């Protein structure tokens, strides 16, 4: 159970960063931290004690394998995370060129 609580703590660390940081890049990093805490949880869900990696070896008879489905899910989610992070970075750099700063307090066009 401890590992799940640690995942949750990591999630909260990301959320704290998302709320308190004022720098665009740091906000993106906080989002990534939250993402990876969830990936960690997904992998842990599929873990089975003493399980082998889920590749069928014709030479070996029946074994206990870990659940491969969460791993496939995490791989796909990592790809999606890559796309989201790349988009965030592109927008952040564009914003930097407009405002000459990464500080979110300087960007007030849409306040209210």
């Amino acid at each position, binding site marked *: 159970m401890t590992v799940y609580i640690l995942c949750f703590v990591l999630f909260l660390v990301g959320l704290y960063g*998302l709320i308190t940081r004022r720098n*665009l890049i740091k*906000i993106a990093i906080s*989002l990534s931290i*939250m*993402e990876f805490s*969830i990936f960690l*949880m*997904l992998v842990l*869900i599929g873990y089975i004690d003493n399980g082998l990696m889920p590749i069928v070896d014709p030479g070996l008879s029946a074994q206990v394998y870990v659940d491969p*489905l*969460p791993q496939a*899910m995490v791989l*796909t*989610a990592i790809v*999606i995370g890559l*796309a*989201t992070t790349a*988009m*965030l970075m592109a*927008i*952040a750099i*564009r*914003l930097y060129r*407009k*405002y000459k700063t990464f500080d979110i307090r300087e*960007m007030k*066009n*849409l306040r209210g």
Partner: protein
Amino acid sequence: MDALIPLFVAIPLISAFLIVILGKLVKGFHRFLAPLTLLVLLILAVYEFTGLGKISITYAMGGWTSEGGVPVGIYLVLDGFSVLMLCIINLIGLIALFYSLSYITKYTAESNYFALFCLIIAGMNGVVLSGDLFNLFVFLEVSVISSYALVAFGVGKTELEASFKYQVLGGLASMLILLAIGLIYWKTKTLNIADVRNVLDAGYSKPFYLFVQVLLIAGFGLKAAIIPFHAWLPDAHSSAPSPISAMLSGVLIKAVGIYVLIRLFFNMFVFSYEIALVLTSLGAISMVVGSLLAIKQWDLKRLLAYSSISQVGYVVMAFGMGILLLLRGNNEAAAVLAIGGAIYHMINHAVFKGLLFLNAGAIEHRLNTRNLKEMGGLSKAMPVTSTTSFMASMSISGIPPFNGFFSKLIIVIAAINGRFYLLATLAVVVSIITLAYFLKFQRFAFFNKSTGKALDKIKEVPFAMSFSMIFLAVLCLALSLLALPSVRDSILSPAIDVLMQSDLYFTSTLGL
């Protein structure tokens, strides 16, 4: 007919990649291919719709069907509700794309715009068709990531800022959804929506699933911009290019927000009183607060965006009422009315909100402003825009004989029949407030005295734009036919049946 289902995702993907490769080499290639794609998709959707009737089709990707009653591969499920959504998505997509042919000429990188548009359509079609939780998540991300890019398409300060805000909140929502999917997989060891229901029927622990449902409401509520989660919507929808605003407000928030929420709560989870109460009250709150926030807006597109929040509130409230009535069990007729009214209002809102954003785009195209105070007297200069927007405004504020009147009337009748008198009163009051702020829009944009700008220089918009607006305005009138019982039976009833008999989905999908 079965073999056509994956084409809804494959065709827009192929044309998106073709546009990226050939769009720069062959001049005008994207202007030709993208509308053709949408037209083919619309014809396919209508063909499926006419052939489907009350049955539902399950398509196992890659030939991986079930193994001892447990599904192995990814399923695509086409039933009455999803085929209706497919028709709406591709219809509004086609109109918005046709409109963009003239509108988009003022931006650079046209071919990227059309490629992203095809990607958004592919993602939404996938979300609507998917019968698998994780597959649904992937398609959802495909459509929202392309919408992040499209919101920032103007690359001005406001566009970029709105897109960043949208991405951070959208990323948060995606994570909540992924967490909920992971938790569901943890307990049930399956991702297929129908199979999850099958497992849940054998017994479940209520507190755990309440937590999962709350996560899902937060996640999809953020995507659908229900009130406490609405902060990104006015910025994102008002900064995007107008055809994209029409897509986002008209279709995207419904396809990736409301549709999924409703599909999961009706066909996957067992109904629970608490969740129904939460949905109903969230819907009512966003209905009221959205309209109150819309009144004080002077930016035309922000006004329309806030009114989207309020109209989506109607839909969510009616679905919540439907669940409450089904749980109560003694008033099935009112439940049918509530669910039918919600689906009807969802279709209507896609049409008239799409039309209103296209009108706003037309005004912005000619005047280069979105501020209502700088407009005035446009009814002579832009007769088509003026007439169509008048029809759309009357429709959204519920004036007969337009479609909005009938769907709101059905929802109000359902609320009265189910003895939700407070909700019925609120629905009527919000409808009056809606009329107030749309009259404000009409007066300041079209009928006021002009404020300085030379009116004689302003001409009507080009053919592609005015044709799309006229088409949608005619549709506003035509859709009120759906209130007739005979038409309703053939179009709305399959969708209502899917939601009313919530066990039907998993028995037909799993082939039990």
